[in-house]
């Protein structure tokens, strides 16, 4: 099994290095195919590992080599494939294999083709390190690796000012959160003396709750950055500047769920501190509603889906925060499938519309893009949580968890958000695929994407439809390491009322979206309303950050630059240089070549040396007295 573990882990790295060989040369198709094949190898290895785990095998635990060993600190490069990490490995390898194949078509005309695949495979490798590591240090390496690759890929079109800006924003926001994460890891090491998950979690049972709470909070700050939770959420929507396959892989299916993975992985810790868990759940519910509301009015296709991702991440944190770790992981998996599908579909639409992103300029695309239309509609149905697609099983479960745990406020927020989710998803579908063909006004001739791209997407479609069927198998597998709490509403009547009620609510929301946006007309009355303005401006949070954080910081930096750096630091360095120059300039005159002057200097030197000798001689003679005198001064 070790062989498969190494294959799964290192094939993406090999693919990345291979594509990097062609980094500077023009498009080479092999630079896209080889990484895709290697990722498929990784996927197959992960599947074998999954089957091994499913058939009741032990978790595969290897220690590749020692990384750090100094004193009491011992950190190995260790990897573990257990029920949790194998789930993540499957999600990562499935989605990334599909995205790789899809990208061969999507990046077809891009001059950075080879570079793109190198980055993308490097990302997958980092993500695998993140999920497979058996200690916090390895997790952190993967964590930073995905952050780096995310930065590279958001800023992939680096000629675009907005893309580099978005890349930097994402990177810097994540640095802020990573500081919290690092403090959390330090706290874990400080108090447990180890970074290995199993040992650290075993040790934590004996620790004080206050310390555990701080650990939990700081680790969660790291998760907040990666998973773009409020108030560090603004980078995710701006990250849509990157190529669409990147959005599908990194900013929907895998990297942003790393925060959820961290909380799930640290479940023994969060079980000990339920009040922090409740905070996580409340924040999750807030973000779910908050992000969904922004998606309602946005006029950028990719941003709508990005806000939807944000909202679904909120759902996952609700489940994780309430202790239903397996539910969170299950929703993570289901969400990865349909959200990646939605993004890839959006990529097709973007291609067809020549990078137009405003759905108000599209309409009626279902006639020309049948395949994409079906896929995106089904993905939206799954996202909305209609029976029997994936979203129904995972999302309804989260609602049930909130209900059973008696958090009725969270429950109602999530229920309301489910309606919003359905509304904005179908608003998008209605605007893009139905109604008049508004794109004709702009002289665009849309065309369907390459066949193989659609075929590559089809596994995601199938998974988005049937993922719910694996619920019980999945439950049995993953609860061997996670707390096995089954969430059943006790009274059958309540259950049916809840389920059918939710379904009806969601269907109504969909119907309303269709009715309102079937005929897409601009609604100036609505656009004048205050709530619309707040939503379209994303609650003025980016504005607030710009005005009250970025600008003061820039002013402060300018002051430091002009006043401190230029006037103190630079002035000191320059001063030293100038003094030396001036001394040289002055002393140069000594070398006049005039014998008389030289003799004078010689005499001066002799006198100087003689007086030094006298001083030292006196000092040596009276050394004892001097010592007494100095000690009297307190030296």
């Amino acid at each position, binding site marked *: 099994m070790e062989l498969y573990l190494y294959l799964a882990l290192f094939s993406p790295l090999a693919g990345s290095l291979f594509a990097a060989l062609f980094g500077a040369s023009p498009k080479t198709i092999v630079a896209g195919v080889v990484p895709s094949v290697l990722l498929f190898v990784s996927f197959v290895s992960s599947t074998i590992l999954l089957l091994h785990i499913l058939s009741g095998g032990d978790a595969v635990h290897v220690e590749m080599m020692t990384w750090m060993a100094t004193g009491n600190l011992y950190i190995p490069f260790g990897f573990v494939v257990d029920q949790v990490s194998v789930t993540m490995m499957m999600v990562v390898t499935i989605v990334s294999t599909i995205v790789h194949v899809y990208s061969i078509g999507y990046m077809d005309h891009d001059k950075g083709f080879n570079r793109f695949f190198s980055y993308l495979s490097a990302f997958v490798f980092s993500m695998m390190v993140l999920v497979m590591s058996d200690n916090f240090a390895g997790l952190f390496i993967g964590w930073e690796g995905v952050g780096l690759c995310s930065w590279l890929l958001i800023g992939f079109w680096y000629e675009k000012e907005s893309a580099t800006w978005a890349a930097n924003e994402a990177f810097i926001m994540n640095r802020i959160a990573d500081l919290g994460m690092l403090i959390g890891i330090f706290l874990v090491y400080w108090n447990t003396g180890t970074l290995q998950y199993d040992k650290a979690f075993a040790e934590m049972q004996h620790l004080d709750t206050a310390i555990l709470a701080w650990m939990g909070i700081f680790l969660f700050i790291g998760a907040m950055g990666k998973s773009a939770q409020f108030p560090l959420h603004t980078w995710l929507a701006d990250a849509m500047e990157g190529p669409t396959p990147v959005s599908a892989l990194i900013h929907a299916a895998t990297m942003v769920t790393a925060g959820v993975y961290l909380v799930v992985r640290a479940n023994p810790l969060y079980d000990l501190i339920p009040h922090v868990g409740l905070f996580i759940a409340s924040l999750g519910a807030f973000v779910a509603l908050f992000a969904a509301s922004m998606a309602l009015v946005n006029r950028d296709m990719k941003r709508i889906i990005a806000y939807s991702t944000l909202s679904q991440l909120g759902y996952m944190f609700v489940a994780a925060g309430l202790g239903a770790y397996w539910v969170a992981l299950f929703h993570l998996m289901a969400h990865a499938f349909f959200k990646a599908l939605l993004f890839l579909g959006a990529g097709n639409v973007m291609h067809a519309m020549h990078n137009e992103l405003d759905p108000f300029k599209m309409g009626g695309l279902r006639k020309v893009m049948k395949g994409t239309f079906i896929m995106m509609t089904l993905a939206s149905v799954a996202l909305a949580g209609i029976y029997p697609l994936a979203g129904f099983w995972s999302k309804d479960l989260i609602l049930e968890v909130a209900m059973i745990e008696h958090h009725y406020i969270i429950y109602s927020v999530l229920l309301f958000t489910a309606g919003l989710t359905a509304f904005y998803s179908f608003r998008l579908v209605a605007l893009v695929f139905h109604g008049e063909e508004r794109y004709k006004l702009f002289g665009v001739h849309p065309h369907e994407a390459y066949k193989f791209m659609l075929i590559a997407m089809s596994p995601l479609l199938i998974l988005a439809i049937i993922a719910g069927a694996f619920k019980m198998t999945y439950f049995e597998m993953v609860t061997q390491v996670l707390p096995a709490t089954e969430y059943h509403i006790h009274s059958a009547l309540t259950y049916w009322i809840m389920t059918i009620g939710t379904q009806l609510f969601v269907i109504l929301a969909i119907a309303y979206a269709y009715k309102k946006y079937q005929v897409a007309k601009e609604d100036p009355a609505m656009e004048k309303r205050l709530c619309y303005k707040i939503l379209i401006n994303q609650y003025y949070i980016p504005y607030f950050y710009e005005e009250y954080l970025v600008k003061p910081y820039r002013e402060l930096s300018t002051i430091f630059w002009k006043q401190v750096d230029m006037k103190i630091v630079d002035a000191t360095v320059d001063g030293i240089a100038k003094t030396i120059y001036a001394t040289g300039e002055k002393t140069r005159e000594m*070398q*006049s*070549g*005039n*014998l*008389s002057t030289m*003799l004078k200097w010689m*005499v001066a030197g002799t006198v100087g040396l003689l007086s030094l000798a006298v001083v030292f001689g006196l000092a040596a003679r009276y050394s004892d007295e001097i010592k007494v005198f100095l000690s009297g001064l307190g030296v």
Partner: protein
Amino acid sequence: MIEIGLTHYLVLSTILFAIGLFGVMRRKNLLLLFFATEILLNSVNIAFAAISHYYGDLTGQLFAFFVIAIAASEVAVGLGLLIVWHKRHGNINLDKMSTMRG
């Protein structure tokens, strides 16, 4: 009448040395510079001889002889060069001797 002791010789030597040093610094005439150098050397000789006598050790006086010998040879070479310089340039002014000025 006071006894003439080591201190007097050393004071004399110091005074002569100061005069010599002053001459070395102030004189612009090469010949006078030689005189000043001789005064310097001889002030040291006086000190040598006096200290040697004071301690009853002949090493100092012996050293004085060496100094005299070296001073003589130095003056011989120096004066030779001085004469050649004077023949060539018609003066022995130190300030004019700056052909190797950097």
